[in-house]
């Protein structure tokens, strides 16, 4: 029936645009890039040591193959539709990433590069983004926009570390875990402020988020100079690294299973979130108040309480994400140390369309984009004798965000009640 409707003209929909992009890119790879690349063989390693798995390839040949595949997959997307074609586009996306790695190594003086840590570090860098996004997920699924994630993370990082320094000067042990708890509570308190402003006072939710951010910036740096500096709290013991037995000894992927607690918790938190959202009473209520608060109210649900709960839970998670900076990674606190991660998290949230699985994947994709930028710098890639400026590589995650948001994801439909202050009927 669908095919019977003859299109008036060839409509340039998203699939065709993306497909066309791959066709053009593929041809460029085949005719312009491949001949320029070296025919000397290079190697991807997946681990350290002589018996690590590896893949040896000739960059120019590999590029020909990848380019050819992109042309075919792209052309299919321009000409046909359907699931297989869409899967083809995903494959093309993966091949493009592979192509970047091939080109990076080809343009470097290095003979080989180890991809295992690239993926492990993608997850590491993705983890705080993911936690931040999860914070936003709870808040926004309940209908409250949260642009204050960054501030809640910063509060967690700063206040958590202050507590740690005050408790025993950063020497680890039980106080360290208590400090993580303080970070969680601090994030929760900032979220409570956001909740109070936006839910109770019905302030514009974006305004309230901006206020939370500003307050966190001011307060944490104030606390740092009032407390941390006099204490001389420069550096502290961080959360210990844990290894998951057996899994951590696996080849290639083993590295992922030796990491610190909050990192592991990220994945656990997502699994729990997916479960809670779908399978529990509270999750059901959160989804309901985010879509149609009035309907929930008619069923006797206290919309305001559910929203408070969701926003504060989100804040706690953001606080934990903050602890990941100060208490898990580095063992110190510096002004503004979350570096905009909260905003990237917001992007990941939209990326994943407010659903736990895709949000996690989106966050990890950002992590990958960052790790990739580092890897290209590491390899000392030069194009026509000029090294790639570090700023270009640092911009990779941002550009990728824009491209993916505009190109591949499509219009993300947020929870219907999001951003609208709710007034209880009375």
């Amino acid at each position, binding site marked *: 029936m669908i095919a019977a409707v003859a299109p008036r003209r060839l409509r340039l929909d998203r699939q065709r645009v993306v497909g066309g992009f791959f066709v053009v890119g593929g041809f460029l790879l085949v005719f312009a890039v491949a001949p320029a690349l070296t025919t000397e063989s290079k190697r991807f390693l997946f681990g350290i040591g002589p018996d690590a798995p590896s893949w040896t390839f000739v960059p120019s040949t590999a590029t020909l193959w990848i380019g050819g595949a992109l042309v075919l997959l792209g052309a299919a997307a321009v000409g046909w539709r359907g699931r297989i074609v869409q899967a083809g586009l995903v494959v093309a996306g993966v091949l493009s990433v592979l192509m970047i790695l091939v080109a990076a190594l080809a343009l470097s003086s290095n003979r080989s590069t180890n991809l295992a840590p690239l993926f492990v570090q993608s997850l590491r860098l993705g983890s705080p983004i993911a936690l931040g996004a999860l914070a936003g997920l709870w808040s926004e699924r309940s209908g409250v926009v949260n642009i204050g994630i960054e501030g809640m993370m910063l509060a967690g990082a700063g206040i958590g570390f202050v507590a740690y320094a005050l408790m025993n000067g950063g020497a680890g042990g039980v106080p360290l875990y208590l400090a993580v708890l303080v970070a969680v509570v601090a994030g929760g308190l900032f979220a409570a402020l956001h909740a109070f402003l936006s839910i109770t006072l019905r302030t514009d939710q974006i305004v309230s988020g901006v206020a939370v951010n500003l307050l966190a910036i001011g307060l944490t740096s104030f606390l740092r100079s009032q407390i941390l500096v006099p204490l001389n709290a420069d550096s502290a013991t961080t959360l210990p690294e844990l290894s998951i037995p057996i899994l951590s000894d696996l080849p290639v992927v083993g590295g992922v299973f030796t990491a610190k607690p909050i990192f592991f918790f990220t994945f656990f938190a997502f699994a729990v979130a997916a479960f809670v959202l779908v399978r529990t009473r509270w999750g059901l209520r959160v989804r309901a108040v985010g879509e149609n608060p009035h309907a929930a109210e008619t069923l006797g649900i206290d919309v305001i309480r559910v929203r408070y709960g969701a926003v504060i839970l989100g804040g706690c998670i953001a606080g934990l994400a903050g602890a990941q900076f100060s208490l898990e990674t580095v063992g110190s606190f510096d002004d503004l140390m979350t570096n905009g991660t909260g905003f990237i998290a917001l992007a990941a949230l939209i990326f994943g369309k407010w659903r736990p699985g895709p949000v996690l994947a989106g966050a990890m994709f950002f992590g990958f984009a960052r790790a990739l930028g580092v890897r290209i710098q590491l390899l000392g890639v030069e194009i026509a004798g000029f090294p790639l400026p570090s700023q270009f590589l640092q911009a990779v995650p941002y550009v990728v965000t*824009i491209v993916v948001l505009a190109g591949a994801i499509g219009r993300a439909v947020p929870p219907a009640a999001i951003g609208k202050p709710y007034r209880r009927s009375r």
Partner: protein
Amino acid sequence: MNGLPAALRRGLAPVVVPVLAVLTALAVAAVAVVVAGSSPIVAYGALFEGAFGTPARIATTIGRATPFIGTALAMAFAYKAGLFNIGAEGQILAGALLAAWVGTWSFLQDWSAWLLLPIVLGAGIVGGFVWGIVPGILKAKTGAHEVITTIMLNFVMTLLAVWLVNSLDPIILRDTAVSVARTRPLPDAARLPELVAGTKLHWGIFLMLGLVAATAWVLDRTPFGFEVRAVGTNADAATYAGMSVARITILVMAISGAMAGLAGAGHVSGADGHLSPGVFVNVGFDAIAIALLARANPYGIVPAALLWGALLSGAPLMQQRAGMSTDLVRIIEAAILVFIAGDVMIRRLFRLPEREEAPV
């Protein structure tokens, strides 16, 4: 307040509420001053004196506020169309960058100010326009949310500017005559004249005030302004009424960017005479706060920006006298925003009439 007739009280509220919010915020932040072991009277006295103590200080305050007016206006204008332009930081930099570059083109160097100034300022407008239209197009054509794209474009522009101005190999915009990484100086003819010598107050302030008036006029008096407000208030009804939401979205983002870009060019041309890529750090977030403080009202932006300028330019003296760092200013700013945003609190606290819904 309670003695006044209700109508008068309601009429005064838009002025009184922000003033009370600011005062309450100062009172709250005084707690931090005391905690830090200093005296609020000394601290705030120094803050005030630092901002307004001498004519030169007043000039500095106004000069500091000048770029805020343009960027906050950019934010407010987009807000009127229901768009959240977080990208003022990138856009002001884009404008400043293009202005700083065009102004140093060698064949322009002997031109008169009558020609050169418009060219340089126009370049700023173009730069901001381009950096604003991109998220506009993305929003209109693909639905990519402007909050995310503008934040990303801020990061991208910051890095781009750092590279263009810093790069030594190759040298792109960098002035090699000085050790600081900045662009080559603009010729005198490309400079907006100073208003008060030795301060950074320049003719750009009039440019910005003109922009405020023009924006208010456009929003209020022109069919285009009507469209902008209609799209911002009820996009469905605007579509129904024959307005193109996509076109207006693109246009508004572009114009919004252009406003920020003009502010950037004004700063380069008036205050510094060159561009140092870090000079606009934080301007974007300040702009948001200022625009929100002014409830996106173009005229309200002027006092709000002056307040921000005063806090920032008074801060150094406060640090000298009372040892309170700019953290305190950030805390004050956040508290102001909280009380303005949650003005219900202020209204209840001071028993003012409640506000009707929908501020914009």
